[in-house]
């Protein structure tokens, strides 16, 4: 059964989606699992953990009710209150100042560091 993409049910915190999350597979910590993010989301805590989501939505596929962690929304909440990673801040500053995310580049120079979120 395909779930309508417009639907976004409220997470029931069953925990059935933990193992499919690639970020949880790295940290093995609940706060990085889809359920952990949903719990944090309901408390209103603004945390950089929201950036550590690949937006792959594998959790949504296995979720019995199709809950979507809405990574983009959680991140836009962070931006709204000015919570950014240092990498993010550098990238935005570079774009503003130099018109590219890499920083000052000489003509023809290939960037050595890619700064992104």
């Amino acid at each position, binding site marked *: 059964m395909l779930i309508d993409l417009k639907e976004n049910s409220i997470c*029931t*915190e069953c*925990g059935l989606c933990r193992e499919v999350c690639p970020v949880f597979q790295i940290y093995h*910590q609940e*706060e990085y699992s889809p359920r952990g993010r949903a*719990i944090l989301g309901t408390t209103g805590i603004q945390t950089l*953990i929201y950036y550590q989501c690949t937006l792959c939505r594998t959790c949504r596929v296995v979720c019995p009710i199709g809950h979507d962690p809405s990574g983009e929304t959680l991140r836009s909440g962070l931006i709204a209150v000015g919570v950014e990673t240092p990498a993010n801040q550098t990238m935005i500053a570079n774009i503003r100042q130099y018109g590219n995310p890499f920083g000052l580049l000489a003509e023809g120079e290939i960037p050595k560091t890619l700064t992104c979120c």
Partner: protein
Amino acid sequence: MMDRLESLLQPDQVSTQEETRVAYSRDASRIQGECRAVVWPETVTDVVRLAQWAAETGIDLVPRGAGTGLCGGATPQNSVVVDSARLRQMDVLNIQLKQVVVEAGVPLDQLNMNLRSAGLFLPVIPGSHRSATIGGMIATNAAGLHAVRYGRMANWVENIIVVNGNGQVQCLAGSERSNSAGWEGITGMIVQATLRLTECPGKRSLTLLSFENLRIMLDQIDTLKTNPELSAMEYVNPNAAIMVGWAAKHTLLIEYHNSDGEIKDPEEISIIWRGRESLSARLTQAGYPVSEDPQIPPEAQEEILGWLFAQEIPVFGHLGVGILHPRFLPDDPRIPELYGRVSVAGGRINGEHGMGLKKRRWASEALKKDFHALKTQFDPHHVFNRGKLC
């Protein structure tokens, strides 16, 4: 005290950050608690150090697997949560003996996926099989979707390695296994177990039977159970059936490990199972978040299931072993009424989820007596799961 905790382990094995404490403040029951810190042991020695630290400081430890428990067993009460998620080694597979040695934090589905090439599997399959860990399943003596054929987790455990409340490492084998299996972590943290396995079924088939009349359905059960290849007998009552788009009838989902069932197409079988397995989350979403788990003796099933249906309470569960899951709103006065009916009928109010925090006030005198004897023997300082069960 927390500084000393941090000095016991590597920095990335301890967290007192707000995000972590919030995410670990409850399990799937959503019974809320207070978490002081979370630790992720990577060796048995880490767990021994933690138990010694807890005995010295008086702070209690809550062992946690996947946190899929439904009675607050893994909910901390101003405790330190010990997450088994980094105890994930699968060690020795002995194909001749059909046994495997695994660490406590291995999720069931991951274990069974690894065993597939050997044609073996651990057949205790709770609805939470994607995530539930071996440690959590032993601690709760999990039953599940195929209990009618394979029984409960304790039947499949050869031995259990536990760190008790004195910080001693013990191997519980033979009759001693029952000092850990089913005791929800009150005697210590399970770190490893040797599990018995069985052959994967060659074939599977399924039959869905729907009934207008509950009595007529119950009359079929004994006959259906005579088939030696029966591997599941799940019940969905009319109030729950409509949640997955099935007819509003008393429905039996019967699975066989041969071709006796009417539905043989693997895709069709898996769609039906997905519907059945989605029921728990769907009912939570539909406003019935509290999952009960009475085990009802056959002679009382008509009376109690009939009463639940008349009350318009959705019910599903493992009818083959009498464990049913009526769903309620929190504090529904019909929950104690249900417990009363089940107790009078000689059933159990905790069929498979355990007692945890949710049911501790219902603990019987016999349970309290066993609890105190076990605590004295294994955990005299009440290091593990303080305040749970009783």
